[in-house]
């Protein structure tokens, strides 16, 4: 049943990719297809990263409302980038080798995430609402702090941060970001390897421990994976607040399954469909500029509210 669901989703995604690749092509097919294929790969990776990161985070935090983006993982990543530019200057930051810079920033993000959120998730165990609220406000604080640091940066060097306040999918440039894509792909593989342990994790801390799972270590590993995936997605398109929430909620709704072997690929497929088909519709059909991110935000906000009012927070 679930596998049939996955197959249908995969078929829908393949169709959206095909349409994305060939719609409205004029002139040199080889050139256009190569360009679009590169973007398509980046978009698919972003979709999978956000979906899987959200699913993992929801499992280890034991609720369906919080997502890495809502608690401010992406804001934290941009904050780290901004602080780097502030500390050593935009020129020096730009001259750092791409690989070293991305890996360094991601490593700092992973450390900060483990330090901050492991404490939050463990401290508020059993008090989901308090944790959710504290997480959301932490997210707001990171965004304000980022805005603050970006104001401190010399305007001439500000371009080095190069992250907008909301995501843009049409300006994606995969070329220079292959290292981010490599890290993202590796993290996705890691998440897949953890799928059965995540199923155990989803039973709750006490059950997981009595079933022989090292809960603490698992929590750390999961947070590191979420940090890697978030860094990948944010480096490629920018921050995406409610996108992950939207797709994991849809995955639960469509697949009606609790195994991560089904949920993670399902959420990733749905995320791909939303991004690729949405981008096609918005860019080609409606002629709207860069607003898919905003529409996703709107829908995600509605889902969030519905979850709250419908007591989906357990």
């Amino acid at each position, binding site marked *: 049943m679930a596998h049939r669901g996955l197959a249908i989703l995969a078929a829908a995604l393949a169709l959206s990719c095909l349409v994305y690749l060939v719609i409205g092509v004029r002139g040199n097919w080889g050139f256009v297809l190569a360009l679009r294929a590169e973007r398509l790969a980046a978009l698919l990776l972003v979709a999978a990263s956000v979906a899987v990161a959200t699913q993992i985070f929801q499992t280890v935090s034991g609720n369906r*409302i919080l997502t890495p983006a809502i608690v401010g993982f992406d804001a934290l990543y941009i904050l780290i980038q901004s602080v780097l530019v502030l500390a050593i200057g935009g020129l020096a930051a730009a001259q750092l080798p791409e690989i070293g810079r991305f890996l360094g920033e991601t490593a700092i993000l992973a450390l900060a995430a483990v330090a901050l959120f492991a404490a939050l998730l463990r*401290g508020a165990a059993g*008090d989901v*609402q*308090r944790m*959710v*609220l*504290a997480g*959301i*406000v*932490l997210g*707001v*604080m990171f*965004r*304000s*702090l980022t*805005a*603050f640091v970006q*104001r*401190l940066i010399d305007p001439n060097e500000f371009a080095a941060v190069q992250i907008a306040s*909301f995501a843009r999918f049409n300006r994606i440039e995969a070329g220079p970001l292959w290292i981010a894509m490599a890290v993202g792909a590796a993290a996705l593989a890691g998440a897949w390897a953890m799928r059965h342990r995540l199923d155990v994790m989803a039973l709750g801390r006490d059950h997981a421990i009595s079933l022989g799972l090292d809960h603490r270590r698992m929590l750390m590993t999961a947070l590191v994976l979420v940090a890697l995936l978030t860094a990948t997605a944010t480096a490629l398109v920018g921050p995406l*607040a*409610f996108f992950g929430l939207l797709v994991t909620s849809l995955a639960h709704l469509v697949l009606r399954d609790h195994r991560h072997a089904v949920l993670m690929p399902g959420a990733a497929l749905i995320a791909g469909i939303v991004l690729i088909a949405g981008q096609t519709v918005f860019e080609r059909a409606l002629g*709207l*500029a*860069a*607003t898919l991110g*905003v*529409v996703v*935000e*709107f829908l995600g*906000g*509605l889902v*969030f*509210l519905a979850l*709250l*009012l419908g007591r989906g*927070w357990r």
Partner: protein
Amino acid sequence: MPPASLPTAEPRAGRHAALALAGLALLAGASLFVGAAPLSASALLADGEGARMLMLSRLPRTLACLLTGAAMAIAGLVMQMLARNRFVEPSTVGSAQGAALGLLAVTLVWPAAGLAAKMLAASLASLAGTAAFLAMVRRLPVTQPLLVPLAGLAWGAILGAAATFIAWETDLMQFLEIWLNGEFSGVVQGRYEILWLTGIFAAAAYLLADRFTIAGLGRDAAVGLGLRYERVLLLGLLIVAAVTALTVVTVGMIPFVGLVVPNLVRMGAGDNIRAALPLVALAGAGAVLAADLVGRLVIHPFEVPAATVFGVIGAGVFVWLIVTRRGHGA
């Protein structure tokens, strides 16, 4: 309000108020002499140029900070009574985003509209946004107080996304940024005076304070005590919406003032709203002025918006409130 608490609460509130006033006077004095261009007391006496700058820019800016801070702190307190929850304020329940939507609408439909029309549209939209939130709150179980701010944040995000979409498609993003991100660097003589109107709403809040306290007991208890609940609710909504719209139109929204300030004051001064209200106003004025001063000083001679400064500090205090006030209810 238990009568027994009155004799102890009143003098303490008086001492607090005196302290707050003294602090505020110090801040305001400092604010007059801090800015991109240097201004010292001796220069002020020596030539007319210094005095002109004081009257045209520094004094209006200081007053705007004080008025905005006081009004937003009061609006936050009223909002908390109406929603019967300590963790809400106009910028986290959709009032500010509603005001921005109303402003966008009037800017698009009637670009030549005057300030009064814009104010009216912003107030009405803010009223609608806040009323929708309150309707939502009524459906939430009273035993789950933290659901209320969560629903408010989501509602605010939805309205904000709608505003962003419209603004993006109509090239009004810059306006939206200005409305939702309060700063005072643009305040000069002639551009802030409308903020004095907030004084009327603050006075109204003071007069109605006891009714809001009763309304805060819930609809059944309030009606049982003889309160015309719906009317008090509407008056409270009007105050919140008008103050929010005034702030958004003139200087832009400053997040967390209405949330952090009343909570901190009530931790010290207790829950007697009428006694706490002047303190809340003073503390709000001081907090916003301090945030603006920090913003002026931290990368002098450039500036950081007061909203950004307050966003960082206010969010930090909010997290602390949530985490520490365990078991205190909401």
